[in-house]
């Protein structure tokens, strides 16, 4: 809805022109997850485990799981745990921050194919030069999890995860 008056053009016109009306929409949503996505998020939150779904038609394993196969439209009826390790299929480095960015820049977006999955999961990784195509990554789960894909903070190179474990 309209929240403020019109802004004025800088030119000295008499009377001043109306150029823009500022407005905004503010909406709150409560999206139903459905049984399958709901279980995926519940497993992340309660057990720090990642679930995939097996297509009854083409056998494809999708992560995150869906109740249906996006490729052949068959029902996904079998669910299994996948990962936690995965291989980087593609990545990009985000050098500059932007509004609502998931992490402070720099960071990397990665497509990770988790062990046992046929699809790649879009997620985040540190800006580490080892995060390249073919690298094996490991999820770093948050301590306080709320049932969202961001319960995985990011995927880190395998060695660094091990190093961190060793240090602790």
């Amino acid at each position, binding site marked *: *809805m*309209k929240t403020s*008056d*019109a*802004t004025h053009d800088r030119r000295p016109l008499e*009377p*001043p*022109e*109306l*150029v*823009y*009306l*500022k*407005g*905004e*929409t*503010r*909406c*709150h*949503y*409560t*999206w*139903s*997850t459905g*049984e*399958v*996505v*709901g*279980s995926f*998020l*519940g*497993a992340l*939150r*309660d*057990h720090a*485990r990642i*679930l995939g779904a097996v297509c009854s038609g083409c056998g494809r394993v999708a992560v995150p799981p869906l109740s249906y196969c996006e490729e052949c439209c068959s029902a996904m009826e079998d*669910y*299994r*745990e996948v990962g936690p390790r995965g291989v980087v299929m593609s990545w990009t480095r985000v050098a500059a921050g932007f509004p609502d960015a998931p992490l402070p820049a720099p960071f990397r977006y990665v497509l990770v194919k988790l062990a046992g999955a046929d699809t790649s999961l879009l997620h985040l990784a540190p800006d580490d030069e080892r995060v390249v195509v073919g690298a094996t990554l490991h999820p770093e789960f948050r301590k306080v999890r709320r*049932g*969202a894909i961001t319960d995985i903070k990011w995927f880190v190179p395998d060695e660094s995860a091990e190093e961190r474990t060793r240090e602790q």
Partner: protein
Amino acid sequence: MLEVAGGSEEPVEVVEGDLDIEYRYAYGEYYDRFYREMRDNRRIMGVACARCRCVLLPPRPYCGFCYEPVDRWVELADEGTVQTFTNVQLPFPGQPTEPPYIYAFIMLDGAAVQFPHLLGEVDPARARVGMRVKAVWAENRKGTLHDIKYFRPVENEG
């Protein structure tokens, strides 16, 4: 509930989120003139179709009835007749005016198209179609339809 190794006993049923977006709406030539006249001169200006001569609101470059270009600005009275109205009592989030209020379409004298606005200083039980009303202008005008506070019944009405 799915039964799967590693599955949770309590699925996450709902994900909540917000979508807040800010906009800048360009007035354009016609709304610019219309709202400047409201703000600076307390005048309601319509445009007249070059063909059917209908005086239209909101001002626009073409006629909504016959699609011919408009060719002149016409000052309309700030007085008119209520064509239809409703006493709105249902609140909803983000509603610009807090209920209860009376929303009406008013045919300004000289116009071919109704003007949407609020009625004020009127008992909802006495509001009626055909009632004569006049604009009550806001003191602090900014170039929106709220430059008119509302329309009130003219003498001997309401």
